[in-house]
């Protein structure tokens, strides 16, 4: 009984806390369907006739295209990061080579400075080689900063794996790639998923690179939002729509992969 009471109390506190944190999001959600005339009414109008006008405008302005661009760009760059970064992280954790630590620090260094330091050289190079405002160019830019993060995090996951498992498999006659796929990968999966989700979210929220290196053709959602600041004023209802829509993919990814993420971020790769 007492335990029940305590847990009820904590649940209540947790729910209230969540409500406080979520309030701005919920507010934004109501703004999506609020007509413009009651948007900032004082006192607040809780009873209004919902409208889909905001959606019409957003669709007419081609935001669906921005959403698609963002999604494809983030997915492709994250997948590439996983494909390239996983073997790299494994190699950094397992193999000895000359100047390994220096190389590792060099990789990490690309995350150390403020992004602005990187974006200008990127811009200059991209104008020269014609990668400005291209899908490939922006993918490449996203990969540089996500790859270093991914390799850095995943290396520690790899290091936590007992090397004896791989030795046992090597003695059994498995080749290095087979050992990686059949022994290492299953143990690394949660770590890979958790880290990849973080990379996806970084890419999804990224503004500076997309703004500088993108353009009219490749315009991600965060870059497109300022279009709603018009000469007639800010279109708050539409901003709310885009904002909520921008939240959804991240929310979906996290919910779908929750199990892996929690395990990956808390327990380490081996247990569980």
């Amino acid at each position, binding site marked *: 009984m007492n335990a029940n009471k305590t847990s009820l109390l904590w649940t209540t506190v947790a729910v209230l806390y969540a409500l406080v944190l979520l309030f701005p999001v919920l507010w934004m959600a109501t703004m999506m369907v609020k007509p413009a005339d009651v948007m900032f009414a004082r006192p607040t109008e809780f009873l209004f006739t919902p409208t889909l006008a905001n959606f019409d405008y957003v669709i007419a302005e081609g935001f669906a295209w921005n959403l698609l661009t963002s999604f494809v760009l983030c997915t492709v760059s994250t997948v590439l990061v996983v494909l390239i970064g996983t073997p790299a992280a494994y190699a950094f954790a397992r193999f000895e080579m000359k100047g390994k630590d220096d190389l590792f620090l060099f990789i990490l260094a690309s995350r150390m400075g403020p992004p602005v330091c990187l974006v200008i050289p990127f811009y200059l190079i991209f104008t020269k080689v014609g990668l400005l405002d291209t899908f490939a160019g922006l993918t490449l830019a996203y990969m540089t900063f996500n790859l270093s993060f991914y390799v850095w995090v995943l290396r520690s996951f790899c290091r936590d794996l007992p090397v*004896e*498992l791989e*030795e046992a*498999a*090597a003695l*059994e006659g*498995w*080749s290095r790639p087979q050992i990686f796929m059949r022994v290492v990968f*299953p*143990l690394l999966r949660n770590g890979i998923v958790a880290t990849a989700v973080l990379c996806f979210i970084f890419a999804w929220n990224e503004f500076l690179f997309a703004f500088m290196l993108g353009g009219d053709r490749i315009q991600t959602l965060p870059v497109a939002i300022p279009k709603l600041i018009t000469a007639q004023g800010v279109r708050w209802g539409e901003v709310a729509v885009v904002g909520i829509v921008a939240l959804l993919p991240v929310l979906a990814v996290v919910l779908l992969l929750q199990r892996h993420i929690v395990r990956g971020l808390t327990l380490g790769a081996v247990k569980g």
Partner: protein
Amino acid sequence: MTVVRFEAVSKRYAGVEALAVADLNLVCGEGEMIALLGPSGCGKSSTLKMAAGLEDLSAGEIFFDDEPVARLEPGARNVAMVFEDYSLYPRMTVRENIAFPLAARGVDRATARARVDDALGLLGLDDMADRPVTGLSGGAMQRISIGRALVRDPRLILFDEPLSHLDGDQRVQLRTEIKRLQKTRHVTSILVTHDQTEATAMADRIAVMRHGVLQQVDTPAAMYERPANVFVANFIGEPPMNMLPGRPAGAGAVHVEAFGRAIAVEPLRAARAERGDGDLIVGIRPEHLAIAPAQGERADAVVSYRECRGDADSLILTPRAAPDVQILVEIPGPAAFRPGDAVAVSVAPDRVHLFERASERNVEAVS
């Protein structure tokens, strides 16, 4: 079945001055189990890893039946290894773990299944065949690991401290079981351990190593009876041998400083000792010393501590001639000796080991 031969094998790790393994020559006979015994850092694990192919050799060659293998990949040697921490694949069931080596070799399904079932039966693992390996007891996990090693009929099995993570009961049980399986399957095996009890209980022969150098290879009994040097004498036998300074005293006797008198020694050993430079270490195992109550002049020592173990009493004696020396004695118990008792000490002449003090080598081993 395979004869494994190490020929002048050396191992040097990058950035380390001393050799981890120095000029090792060792033959492990067909179906034989050899224990590599020594304290940590003695080179026993490096030797094992070189046999497995997990470490490169710095010099020398390893032969399996006259076939050099030092340059073969681990997987090409058909060597199995049982690890200290079991190293089972955590996302697989017991059966999948044991079957995993067969999949690597492309053994067809029916054969593989039969052989896995065979291994499961042999190890008494049938009930848990389809359970995941996580959460099983240490003993069960190590049995699975042994099953995984046996299932593919390896030429050589390497046991790397297989019992050190287990507790008392399971340790003794598995020790017997490994010995039994190794003998029934007649697999050449190398066991690495730092525990002399384990080595003497399981191995046909023991190879004692120290600082990368092989000290002696012999059967457990021979090593106990005739240790090649002070290090081996100390390492084999529990509690360790008493090492007392002494010198030759002519005609089949040596003078032991701690006793303040000469004791009789097997004539051949005494004669050998005469030829050296004089100073000796006299080694006497605690269980070979006999004591009797004594009065006045005849007393050699005083009992300073008694530990009663039921079947045996462990005593510490303080010799009268050398009060800062401690002599360990084990006698059948419970005995009547108590701290403060004056005692006379005696030992059978053939139980006295003599070592040169300078080289620490057994006088019998010195040529």
